[in-house]
């Protein structure tokens, strides 16, 4: 079964054979590249002295912005990111100089000999300060529906509050890495760990001042990415390319973990304010929400991220009167970037907290309030941006999950537990996810593929998607195996290469298999037509009495068969050979673009998404109020994944996304001090979940009998939606804390719910001022 193929690299992974960029050694004399970065959040560069470093044995070259032959620019959308700082630095971690040396030790020694003199300028390192000083990056974005004022007027009650959601470090296990190899003339090859090889190619070409047809970017696999290598992998690639151009030698840059954490952007932290109006029964009539995102020093993908946050301020709820406004604020910090969920989690957190607050206000179970406000099937199914919510499975998910998770009886058990324990409190919550699938920048929804069939009957698939662990290549092999009726062992996915499939979009927005799967399918369709014609001719020439029509040839069990003449059967391998001898092209390109999506950002209306993914989770936590310690007792996830292309791979995405979200909601704290230094810059202090942090009882199931008629094999995208299921843990924690003593948790609730927040807020003895 093509849906049961194991990860195509699994054996290479477990044997250590799988090669990552840092494992590549194309030549003996690969130089080590090191980035010298700013130690100031905002300053004018007065002087740079590299004399001593230049004289150190083993240092090959030290370059600054003046050595850039092309444009000093690597901004992906808006050109506001210099490749190397010129006279000014705007955050701690900004690249100023590049060193190429014979090894890491020498490069580090050299960096210590470099003296950069700064004249500090006023800096903004907190989001609050950016807001209060009106340091806006670009004009605000707004999405509105209905009549907000009359919605509030009709509401029986109204709640206001604030939700702060923290930054998050991607913490891909493989830090940013690139290897640049100068070839003939101006040509250059980049081995990148990039989600977006075409953009890496464009930026390298821009920085080197050469045409894109001279740059080849190849991506074999990434050691995790999660959005962190969508744009910011371009940086190391551009730096390595620059050093390679300058030295004429191959140069590798592999950021040390601390440097990676200091230099690269993170999930945007938000300060969000909301006001929600509702009836006595808890039906929401009006919702006003303001999102303030910390963009960092430049634009990067922040506009699209803010858009997605605004699109998801409703999460799974129909709200007739609504206004969502988003602001991007500029700070002297690394430019924040794509991260699984892409703003969605920040937008959803606010409405989930609001739903919970309504329930507490009305003295009802939060599950009831959520259910009451879900999008419905035939009415109450238009989002605030005007898109119809189709194939909505919220109600089925809710009803099935409530039963399978034993929600109601556990609710009673928890009440009893809490009444008996003073300092241990349990909480329970069910939270939904409705996540829109497609790039919200509509033209990006395109993909291409190149499929080669060789004379021995083996197949090589090339497509624009990149493999970062998500199992995209495995799914693509499954799609091809189904389409060609050929076993997976004869099919291979090539590393992603810009010289084979050009002008690709990033592997992002959970769209990898939707887009590339369709493109591969398109190419295979063309090849099958050609091969079928050749084989029909072959058969018909031998036996002109019975005519095989090409369209009657089916591909299954490694054979081609004429459905009308089942005795006319030939192995795929032999068929390919015959097709070749009959002078048939066995290589085809495929293309796909998502139909029917458009969005007008000025009006805030349109159909930005091809479809929605629905999912739901129930989590139960126990909090030690004295230490802030949180135990995740059980999580039940029920997911509508259409017809999964590979259920085990999808379950892995669900578990992985959920646990990554769990980290964001609990232990992952990112703070900068007033001077812009990142406090948690290594795993010593930055704490992603370990195996001990996952739910003690962790159940993941798919909703059965669901399909998605619009996509490849009726599947659904999987990468991002599960991340937001972790909000169930956050809401269960709020539920638990509400049971603590007489403390009112309130309508403000923040992410992460770090232990400090708990002990500071819920400490039970009266603190005497010191």
């Amino acid at each position, binding site marked *: 079964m093509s849906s049961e193929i194991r990860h195509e690299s699994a054996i290479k992974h477990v044997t250590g054979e799988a090669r990552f960029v840092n494992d590549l050694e194309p030549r003996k004399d690969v130089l080590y590249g090191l980035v010298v970065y700013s130690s100031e959040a905002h300053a004018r560069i007065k002087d740079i002295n590299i004399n001593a470093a230049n004289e150190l044995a083993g240092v090959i070259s030290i370059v600054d912005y003046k050595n850039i032959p092309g444009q000093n620019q690597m901004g992906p959308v808006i050109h506001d990111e210099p490749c190397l700082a010129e006279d000014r630095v705007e955050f701690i971690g900004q690249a100023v100089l590049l060193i190429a040396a014979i090894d890491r030790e020498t490069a580090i020694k050299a960096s210590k000999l470099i003296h950069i003199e700064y004249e500090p300028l006023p800096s903004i390192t907190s989001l609050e300060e950016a807001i209060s000083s009106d340091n806006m990056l670009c004009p605000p974005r707004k999405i509105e529906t209905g009549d907000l004022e009359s919605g509030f007027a009709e509401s029986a009650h109204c709640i206001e509050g604030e939700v702060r959601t923290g930054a998050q470090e991607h913490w891909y296990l493989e830090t940013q890495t690139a290897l640049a190899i100068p070839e003939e003339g101006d040509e250059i090859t980049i081995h990148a760990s990039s989600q977006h090889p075409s953009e890496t190619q464009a930026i390298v070409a821009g920085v080197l001042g050469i045409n894109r047809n001279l740059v080849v970017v190849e991506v074999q696999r990434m050691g995790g990415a999660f959005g962190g290598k969508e744009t910011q992998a371009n940086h190391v690639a551009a730096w390595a390319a620059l050093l390679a151009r300058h030295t004429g030698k191959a140069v590798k840059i592999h950021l040390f973990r601390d440097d990676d954490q200091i230099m690269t952007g993170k999930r945007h932290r938000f300060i969000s304010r909301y006001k929600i109006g509702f009836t006595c029964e808890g039906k929401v009539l009006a919702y006003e929400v303001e999102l303030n995102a910390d963009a960092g020093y430049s634009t990067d993908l922040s506009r699209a991220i803010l858009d997605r946050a605004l699109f998801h301020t409703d999460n799974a709820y129909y709200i007739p009167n609504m206004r969502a406004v988003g602001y991007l604020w500029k700070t002297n910090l690394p430019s924040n970037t794509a991260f699984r969920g892409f703003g969605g989690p920040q937008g959803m957190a606010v409405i989930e907290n609001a739903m919970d607050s309504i329930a507490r206000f009305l003295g009802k179970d939060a599950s009831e309030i959520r259910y009451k406000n879900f999008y419905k099937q035939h009415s109450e199914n238009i989002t605030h941006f005007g898109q119809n919510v189709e194939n909505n499975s919220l109600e089925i998910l809710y009803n099935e999950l409530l039963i399978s998770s034993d929600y109601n009886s556990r609710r009673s058990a928890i009440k009893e537990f809490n009444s008996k324990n003073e300092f241990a409190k349990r909480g329970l919550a069910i939270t939904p996810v409705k996540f829109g699938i497609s790039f919200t920048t509509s033209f990006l929804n395109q993909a291409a593929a190149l499929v080669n069939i060789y004379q021995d009957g083996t197949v090589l698939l090339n497509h624009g998607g990149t493999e970062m662990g*998500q199992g995209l290549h495995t799914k693509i092999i499954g799609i091809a195996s189904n389409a060609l009726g050929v076993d997976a062992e004869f099919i291979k996915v090539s590393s992603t290469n810009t010289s084979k499939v050009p002008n690709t979009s990033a592997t992002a927005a959970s769209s990898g298999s939707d887009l590339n799967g369709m493109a591969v399918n398109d190419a295979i369709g063309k090849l099958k037509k050609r091969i079928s014609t050749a084989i029909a001719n072959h058969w018909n020439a031998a036996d002109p009495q019975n005519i095989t029509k090409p369209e009657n040839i089916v591909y299954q069990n490694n054979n081609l068969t004429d459905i009308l003449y089942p005795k006319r059967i030939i192995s795929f391998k032999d068929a390919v050979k015959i097709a070749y001898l009959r002078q048939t092209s066995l290589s085809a390109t495929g293309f796909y673009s998502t139909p029917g999506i458009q969005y007008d950002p000025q009006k805030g209306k349109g159909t930005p998404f091809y479809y929605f993914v629905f999912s739901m989770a129930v989590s139960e936590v126990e909090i030690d109020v004295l230490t802030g310690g949180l135990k995740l007792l059980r999580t039940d996830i029920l997911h509508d994944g259409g017809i999964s292309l590979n259920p085990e791979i999808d379950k892995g995405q669900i578990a992985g996304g959920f646990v990554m979200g769990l980290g964001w909601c609990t232990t992952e704290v990112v703070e900068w001090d007033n001077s812009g230094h990142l406090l948690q810059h290594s795993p010593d*202090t930055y704490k992603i979940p370990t195996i001990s942090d996952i739910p003690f009882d962790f159940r993941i199931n798919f909703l059965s009998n669901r399909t998605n008629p619009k996509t490849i094999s009726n599947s659904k995208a999987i990468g991002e939606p599960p991340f937001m299921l972790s909000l169930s843990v956050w809401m269960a924690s709020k539920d638990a804390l509400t049971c603590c003593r007489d403390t009112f948790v309130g309508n403000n609730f923040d992410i992460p719910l770090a232990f400090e927040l708990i002990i500071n807020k819920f400490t039970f003895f009266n603190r005497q001022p010191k």
Partner: protein
Amino acid sequence: MKTTRNCVEFILDGKILRLNFAEESAIKPTTTVLNYLRSIHGHKGVKEGCGEGDCGACTIVVAEEGIRGNLEYKALNSCLLFLPMLHGKQLITIENLAQKKGQEILLHPVQQAIVDEYGSQCGYCTPGMVLSMFSLYKNSPHAQEDSIKLALSGNLCRCTGYKSILNAAKIACSKGPEDHFTNGEDAVLELIHSIHKNTDPILLQTDDYQYYIPFTTEDLLHYKSGHPEALIIAGASDIALRQTKKNELLPNLIDISQLNDLKFIQEDHAGFYFGAGISIEELRDFSEDRYPALFNVLNVFGSHQIRHLATLGGNLATASPISDMIPILLVADASIRLISIHGQRELKLEEFIKGYRQTDLKADEIILMVRIPKNERITFINTYKVSRRKDVDISCVNGAFSVELSRNNRIDDIRIGFGGMAAQAKRAAITEAFLSGKQWERNVIEEAMQLLYTEFQPISDARAKAESRSILAGNLLMKFFLDVNYYTKTQADVI
């Protein structure tokens, strides 16, 4: 002075590998096993994830002879391990696990389980994960969920959410410990013995480095008295960070990891005697039954890999203000015995810790052992650790408490020790004095909590705010109060 050698020997790929540091310019004595493996042919499976022993991507397995004469397989962080520390041991890398029979690859059971359970996604953490699981497979066959989590918590994975990895470990470990290594163990032990025949000290000398490995305490003390500036390392889990994180040179080291004289655990009617060279993991294993209060904190000390590297002596010598070890030893009234060429001396741990990472250790002295007296009068003793994450995290605050209660529930003696509250791990003298002689009652404890809130002036840092620490100190006392009451109640029920 005995003759010395300038090379180390260890087993890799079934053969003894002899490294002469004077002849090979590509390596130096402080080259890490990670960097060494990545520089030679056929061992690039090992990965660097953080360079500080926190992520486990660089995990390798070192097999050495255990006390029962068998091979013990320890998963270690190769990013913190200096090459000479492999002397007389077998290094097992990810490339050694699968067997090749012609074209066919026979995966090790732990590898096969990970493949079958979809336990790899991006694959970058996988080699390290496989090796941690392999060490568990060899040492603790039939491990249950708790032990699996404990063994794997030092291996971070950002992709899978661990569910598939946990499943794979359960399946694989139900099969251990037999595998293709089993048959070769006698041969490996023979090689190990042949290396260990020579017990002359090793002195690795290059232009910039001196790295000394003694095999007896006597050799160590002589060398130390002649080289008082030399740094002593055992597991180097702290000192190595100066090189990997701060890029410092470590030109003069004494590696005492081969010193079996310092690796003892003894107990008699009067107390416990722990050699300075025992690893935290060995101490954890011992204390599980014999000293639960110590066990409770050692169980959340570093990762499996770090606990195997780190030693008791090393932990005390660093005198960290957030030490997990010192508070319980302070409360247990432990003494420390030091030894130099001039003789031995014993002092209370409280006198030994002098300040922020400062001890009373003289330049020619080393730590010999720690002694914990047995005190029958103690009603209850326990430890608590608060950290942002449960496993593999440094304390924000940790507390150790012991109390002696008289029959009428009066506090005869109470001892409270904290890490993370001051520049050094410290006892709460004011609160102890306040509680002494008072009744063991809730309102008294609540008053003491307020006192603890003001007794210390902790700092704010990346791990916690000062305010949180001050609150936590009191909260931990409350936890202890509840535990004591629970314990005395259940004891009474038993009687």
